[in-house]
């Protein structure tokens, strides 16, 4: 997920060319206070005119406690981007308030309530505490994201390469997402010149269960794709597992072994996930 400042026309117009799975057009932290209205108008117009190719488009609005949040929604919701990202989501109450306004705007424009989704951004200790309730509150919430920088500020801790201080938050957010069958997207890696560091952090994020990672520079996209894309070897293995599973199932066998390793339902589910990531239709194998 590529962050693009909402007040930068040059970057916005090229947003779709880098092959990011999703774009985050930012009206919040990347935009200075005196640029908020300019960014809102620019993003509104860009959404209507620019082809972002295959990237999903998400707009991060300002919090409703600021003077800008409401107006952001009024301009953006009618255009129905793929998702709205809500910063500093701390409670179910926050979401209730947000959804009420969104649905009100959608009603005014005769728009459905089930198209545009919500990404709840967890970036305070309170948000982490309530993350399970936030994740399960509404079907419209289809992703949780962690805002590392703000969370560290809220916790009064320094940014370290290891990310020790926000490790628990990361894992709680992932767990809440998994428990509700939605995506969890990891925070940005701020040192754009440290490719090794980015790779290491992305591998960690993948290993603890995140389904993606945010980037602040297009140069970071390929590294993240590389980490999250299954290798040829992994795909081949997954294909074999799913194929053998189907063959055995037809013969009435639920558990079997490949090269001496037990294959049961969880292993098959994992293999199906790998094939899905690789864009292979595992149901028709």
């Amino acid at each position, binding site marked *: 997920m590529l962050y693009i400042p909402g007040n930068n026309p040059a970057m916005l*117009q*090229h947003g779709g*060319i*880098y092959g990011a799975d999703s774009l985050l057009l930012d009206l919040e932290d990347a935009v200075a206070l005196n640029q908020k209205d300019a960014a809102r108008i620019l993003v509104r117009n860009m959404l209507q005119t620019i*082809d972002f190719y295959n990237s999903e488009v998400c707009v991060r609005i300002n919090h409703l406690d600021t003077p800008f949040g409401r107006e952001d929604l009024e301009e953006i919701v009618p255009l129905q981007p793929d998702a709205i990202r809500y910063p500093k989501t701390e409670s179910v109450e926050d979401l209730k308030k947000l959804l009420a306004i969104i649905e009100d705007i959608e009603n005014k424009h005769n728009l459905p309530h089930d198209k545009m989704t919500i990404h709840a951004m967890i970036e305070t200790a309170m948000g982490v505490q309530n993350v399970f309730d936030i994740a399960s509150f509404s079907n419209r919430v289809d992703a949780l994201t962690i805002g590392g920088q703000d969370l560290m500020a809220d916790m009064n801790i320094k940014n370290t390469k290891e990310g020790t201080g926000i490790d628990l938050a990361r894992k709680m957010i992932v767990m809440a997402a998994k428990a509700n069958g939605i995506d969890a997207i990891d925070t940005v890696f701020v040192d754009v010149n440290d490719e090794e560091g980015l790779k290491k952090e992305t591998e960690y994020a993948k290993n603890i269960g995140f389904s993606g990672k945010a980037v602040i520079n*297009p*140069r970071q996209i*390929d590294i993240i794709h590389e980490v999250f894309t299954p290798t040829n070897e992994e795909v081949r293995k997954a294909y074999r597992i799913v194929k053998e599973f189907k063959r055995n199932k037809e013969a009435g066998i639920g558990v079997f072994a490949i090269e001496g390793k037990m294959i049961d339902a969880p292993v098959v589910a994992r293999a199906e996930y790998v094939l899905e990531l690789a864009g292979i239709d595992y149901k028709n194998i």
Partner: protein
Amino acid sequence: MKNVIGRNIPEYINGIGKVEPFLGAWEKLKKGWMDEITVPPPNKAKLPHQCKSCMDLRMAIEKTNPHDGMTVSFHHHLRSGDNILVMTIDILAQMGIKNITLASSSLNNSHDSILKYLKDGTITKIWTSGLRGELGKAVSEGVLDVPVTIHSHGGRVRAIHTGKIQIDLAVIAASAADEEGNATGAHGKSAFGSMGYARIDSRYAKQVIIVTDNMVEYPCTPTSIQQHYVDYVVKVDSIGDASKIASGTTRITKSPMDLRIAKLAADVIENSGMFTEGFSFQVGAGGASLAVAKFIREKMKKNGVKGSFLLGGVTSYGVDMLNEGLFRAIFDVQSFDAAVSSSILKNRNNIEISSGYYANPYNCGCMTNKLDIVVLGALEIDIDFNVNVITGADGIIRGASGGHSDTASGANLTVVVCPSFRGRIPIIKKRVHTIVTPGETVDVLVTERGICVNPKKPELEESLIKAGLKIKKIEDLQKEVEGITGVEKPIEFTDKIVGIVEYRDGTIIDVIKQVKNAN
């Protein structure tokens, strides 16, 4: 009359004479020899132990019989750090010489100060491969009565062989030289590497002056320029600004857009069928072109592919690839930084070559003819794949033909990399303002918004599609870009021709008209 790619070319141009229209990239070469007569180089003599050293440049110039209507030549290896061209023209102007033909292998911003001599009749004709800055603007606005001739690097050698350019005086800057005129660019405080473009001047000019800021004990090696062609030798305080001589174009770009284009181009190359053991390769310096080298280097290591030679304007990035064993040799007509200069000195596989060896179409084996893959930039490209690298979106001359058409003509795979638009100016157009490189020599265009394959290469398109690359029709990409930028207001030109673009075989591929109301 119209040439084969539909450009209007007059049959006769005042001050130039009768011109031959472009016939196609390889039409004239098919014959196997050049119809034009090759003029003999001058035969000169010196007495035994005769001294060639002069106190200063003025004294040397005085000895060379400067006269009205003379042709003076220079090389552009000092790039934007050059002091010598301006210094020489200043002296000739002080002597009251008029009607000079300036035949520098290229011109750039460091030469802006000679504009006054174009205005006062000191310089009345120009031959060059590139023109920028104040000079480019003034020429586009019609400061000269006779059009400037833009040639390619290879074409310049042909033009000298045929006597179209007859050099009376070559003033050749060197970063090291001895008292006999053996000279090099490979060492010294102003080192600039290869002297490839100057060799033909040293051979064909009636008078040759070597200018250096670093006189070394005899003999100066390597002998990039050889003493038996040199008339006089001059020591000056400085031949140029060393910081501008090493152009700093060897750092890999951090621009996400350039990197994106470069990565796509590298993917194209990898899947072109040309990325095989022993392939030869040339990329430009800076921007997306050089970044392609970064990705190709990674792919070569990953796939265990080794190339045969690197060609061209050489960067330290190329030297690194040579030293890593990824290529067996570098053929170096021009070097971009200090690391290349020292590589020429130390590594026998970093071979300094002349511009004739590099790209002259009329010999039995210029290096560009042996090239497998070249990656080139563009100021504009059109839906027929014709490329403009000389005039900007405002019609003003601000670029260089250089080796663009030479390498495109020679390479098996010519990849043009450029953004589809810059600012709000489309780069992909229905028709480019000026054609330098004909579309028939361009195989693929790679932009951030798509890859387009020349319909003349269906088998290439097929293998790229098989590899999963998304290919667009160039007409569709042009329309897509126009949808973003809108349609430009056409530039207004007068009927006056201010420049002719000579193709490497000597035919005229396009003309440049005077811009109206330029500001």
